[in-house]
């Protein structure tokens, strides 16, 4: 049984994070921006929220994935970086998935997807430096101000990939 029949060549724009925790909601906010724009027809928008290992299936079958998430990169709040998985070391809290399953997130899902040989061929991450991820809904001003430029970058990346 195949649970995920994604037609070939599609791009997934995947927002991660919890909008109840300050700037961790940046991914969902960028998706909201993108919903108001012209998107290439082969692009799907998915709010992955605080998904764990099920991200393996969310990403399964896509040719390309663009992940938008808050990331602590020791930058100024609102600054963002676009990188591929080859450029960085994502610290999985539990790289062998041997402990509790409560903590699985993107890094752990990527470990499992790789072991399953199910990693999408291209994964681009747009990491946004949060000012706070405390328990309060809403983005801080510097992250809110960056939404437009992040959405532009996501669209440019999606368009660039689609012409490759």
């Amino acid at each position, binding site marked *: *049984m195949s649970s995920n029949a994604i037609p070939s060549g599609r791009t997934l724009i995947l927002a991660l994070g919890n909008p109840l925790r300050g700037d961790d909601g940046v991914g969902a906010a960028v998706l909201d921006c993108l919903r108001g724009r012209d998107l290439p027809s082969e692009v799907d928008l998915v709010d992955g929220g605080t998904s764990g290992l099920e991200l393996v*299936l969310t990403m399964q079958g896509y040719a390309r994935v663009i992940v938008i998430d808050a990331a602590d990169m020791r930058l100024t709040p609102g600054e963002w970086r676009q990188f591929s998985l080859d450029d960085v070391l994502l610290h999985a809290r539990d*790289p062998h998935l041997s402990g509790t399953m409560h903590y699985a997130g993107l890094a752990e899902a990527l470990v499992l997807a790789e072991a399953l040989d199910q990693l999408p061929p291209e994964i681009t991450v747009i990491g946004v430096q949060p000012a706070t991820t405390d328990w309060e809904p809403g983005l801080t001003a510097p992250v809110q101000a960056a939404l437009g430029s992040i959405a532009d970058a996501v669209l440019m990346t999606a368009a660039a990939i689609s012409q490759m």
Partner: protein
Amino acid sequence: MSRVHVDVHHLTRVEGHGNIVVDVRNGVLEKCELQIVETPRFFEPMVRGRTYKEVAHIVSRICGICSVGHSTAALRALEAALGIELTEQTILLRRLNMHGEMLDSHVLHTYMLIAPDLLGVQSVVPLAKSQPEVVLRALRMKKLAGEICRIISGRHTHPIAMVVGGFTHTPSEKDLLYLRKLLLDARADVDATVDLFASLELPAFERETEYIASHKDDEYCYIDGVIASSEGQTWLANDYRSVTNEYLLPYSTAKRARNLRESYMVGALARFNINFEQLHPKAKAAAERLGMKPPVINPYMITVAQVIEIVHCVEDALELVDQLLTKGVQWEDPVAPPYLSGTGVGVCDVPRGILFHEYTIEDGVVTGANCIIPTGQNLQNVELDMRALVPKIIDKPQPEITLALEMLVRAYDPCISCSTHLLDVEFK
């Protein structure tokens, strides 16, 4: 002097923090403890002073795996306290939601936490490399479980649409038809799960004990019911304290429980032993294929009982969806409480076993709360199993002894984070 010393600090592939400490000197078992070192959670004082409407959403956070179970137990307690009678539709929807959570938890435990031991690998990562189809199947079944919970109660974890007296959202016919298709598609994965566990060998070890589960004569019971013991007695929900008899040990932050024997077991195997007759016929057929006939007194077989419940939950969920489709789901306002003061007990049999919530409400505000979680009830039984097991395997190499003990504790699927119950400490 011969000495066997096992010290597993922070056992892996369980939820939360626990240690196994066993000391044998000259053939004498001197120490055999399952130490619970998780910090207490303080949920009961957290809900005191809150309105009854907030309780289910707060206590849902006791566990990210059993959030539907904690919410449902809390709602049943509050509804009992405030004199609310549920509609048939709400009862069907709550049962369906519980099946989603049962599937999610059992698939996680059987595939991600137990299968690595039985297939001789350290964790699910090497299993994904050697048998990717097994792990992908588990992920597909977890996705189905999450979809059931999302559609019925608004999201995968921490139900938002389940409230006192009913639901704030009802699934559409399209939603139910989508679930029906997912459930029908899942049958192949369920069959493959039974085949997989029929092919695996679990350790042979037996110890008689008492089994406790909720029970109804006409339904394999996960919500409400009487409290039933394998010793033949039953108790009403309100009398749960005379079953659990909680007490303390100095090396554990979680309370222990005992009833008619020194300890008792709750969970899938207890339910299987007590409620076998009420299982779906396809689950009974799976039990036969898996060589399970009650009473089963090997605690390692808890995992196999979970596999049988996976079959039951998928088949019963299909029947519930069909009933809802036939009757047609209508919007219903949640039933309003006729009065705002009272005390009530809620009983649910959640993935790890029977769960009790009790609340006292005065003028709509919580003044008393008590939650007794399955893992706490099982702890003493695990430790007595360890005491019985160690002498039988004492001549084996130490790594084998350690693995056998780790697998025994894991079999109970302990949720240590949930079981740490506030201790009342008085220094002299």
